């Protein structure tokens, strides 16, 4: 027989190790939410990938520093996502003046080899991105969390500290605003 020490659940092991500073364990812990945070930062930074990466990594550093205070009474995913959301919003407010302006449709669409439908599709995508960029902070956050990250209403409510009903109505209004912008620009 051979015994090694382990734990009640793998996530809890990772959390314990991460609290002790094990960066491998920490990365495993946040692995699943990395795409969420990156995409959130990406839309918040209006499509600038470098800014988004910097912001996402800074957000995770904040999670790492806050680890000692994590009490395991809330789900780790929700707890860390909330820290990331706040980190991103703090950074945006700090940089308010320097954020890249609303994206313009890139030159690449001049590529003649692309089929008409593909061009239209890409244009639509870029237009949608631009429309999201011009939303107010809360609407933008909600749309990204719900429709791009695919998080549940409950999770969103916990992350944003909002009531369920409020999340739903705010989200509806956000989508309506988005549609209005798109229609107004006559792009879709």
């Amino acid at each position, binding site marked *: 027989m*051979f015994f090694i020490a382990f734990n009640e659940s793998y996530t809890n092991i990772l959390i314990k190790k991460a609290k002790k500073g094990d960066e491998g364990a920490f990365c495993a812990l946040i692995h699943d939410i990395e*795409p969420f945070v990156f995409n959130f930062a990406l839309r918040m930074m209006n499509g600038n990938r470098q800014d988004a990466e910097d912001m996402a990594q800074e957000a995770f550093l904040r999670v790492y520093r806050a680890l000692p205070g994590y009490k395991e009474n809330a789900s780790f995913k929700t707890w860390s996502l909330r820290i990331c959301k706040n980190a991103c919003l703090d950074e945006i407010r700090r940089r308010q003046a320097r954020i890249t302006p609303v994206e313009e449709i890139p030159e690449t669409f001049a590529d003649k080899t692309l089929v008409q439908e593909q061009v239209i599709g890409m244009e639509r995508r870029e237009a949608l991105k631009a429309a999201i960029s011009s939303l107010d902070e809360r609407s933008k956050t909600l749309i990204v969390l719900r429709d791009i990250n695919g998080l549940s209403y409950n999770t969103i409510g916990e992350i944003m500290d909002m009531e369920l009903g409020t999340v739903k109505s705010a989200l509806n209004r956000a989508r309506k605003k988005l549609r209005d912008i798109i229609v107004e620009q006559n792009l879709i």
Partner: protein
Amino acid sequence: MSCEDIKVLLDEYITGELAESDKAMVEEHLSTCSECRREYNELKALKNQLKELEEKLPEGFEERLTRKIKKEKRSAYFYVSRFGVSVAAAVVLICAISLGYGMGHNKELDNRLKSMGSGAENTAEAVQEQAEADSAEAEQNTLSEETDAITEITDAANIADVNTQDREITTEQVTEAVIPKTEKQTVTEVQPRTENTAADSVGTDFAQTNAVIPQTAEQAIPEAEQPKTAEKAVAEAEQADLGSEADEAVPKNNSVMMKSGLSVQDSAVADFSADGSPEPAAAALKEEVTLLIDGQELDRLKNKLETLARVKNLRDCDGGVAADVENMSYEALKAALKDFDLTEESADIDEDCNFYSLIIKAK
């Protein structure tokens, strides 16, 4: 069902989050209401387009993040060597101030210890240790909520404190009297758990094994245990590979010292000492995960872990090889378990056991 009511449900209907009854209701309404059907189509199209905006993580994202985290850790160390003493003094002050905060933890621990039944005489002592440890923990938590800078310094200071403790242990004879409070607390906590684990279904297996962490075999003889611990602890200290890896947060001296092949002690102590933010509450509540794998796989895993343990110079009281997952880096653990495709789902969780251990048994 009015159209307004249905529209509210459309989002979750599209994502499949609706309960069966609500789903049926929506479908029924959509089949008859063209207005809502149009709304549904528009929403679905928009959501699909938005979903397409999701992008993949950039290449190397995790590597770059890991580098930043390592830098973060190193800067904490920097504070230690630079400010060592004065920071430690500041921490003591802060401890004193926030002592009151930790008192609330006592009741919880009391209940846990009571529910473990035996070792009642140890409760009071353990609770007292717990209170002190908890206040230290509370202090840690309170500070980390304030500013990042203070958190770093606090972490570093605790690391410094632990380092000091370690040196004391390794150079002096280890007896009950000399052992710092934390270890003592751990030892007394362990005994109650002994009975639980012995009573466990895997009791007989424990007795027979010559292996790694024969907690119950050892602890079945509580009398003999203490002196044995002390002797072996000293021997181990001399052999111990102290703070070998720069990446691991804190030297694991304490846990090696108290090891004696007892993983419960290890984890409890490791929890406490490793990064200076003690988790004695966690030490009180552990479960055992039993993995059933057979012959060849078992041998391979055993060999892998033996190699790892040799590298880390871990020994149990019989001079056998111990491998303590608590003290393994995550990467090492992953490497050891990789071939075996071990996941939470493949493990049987034994509800009766109370320690932090994975038992790998032959099928």
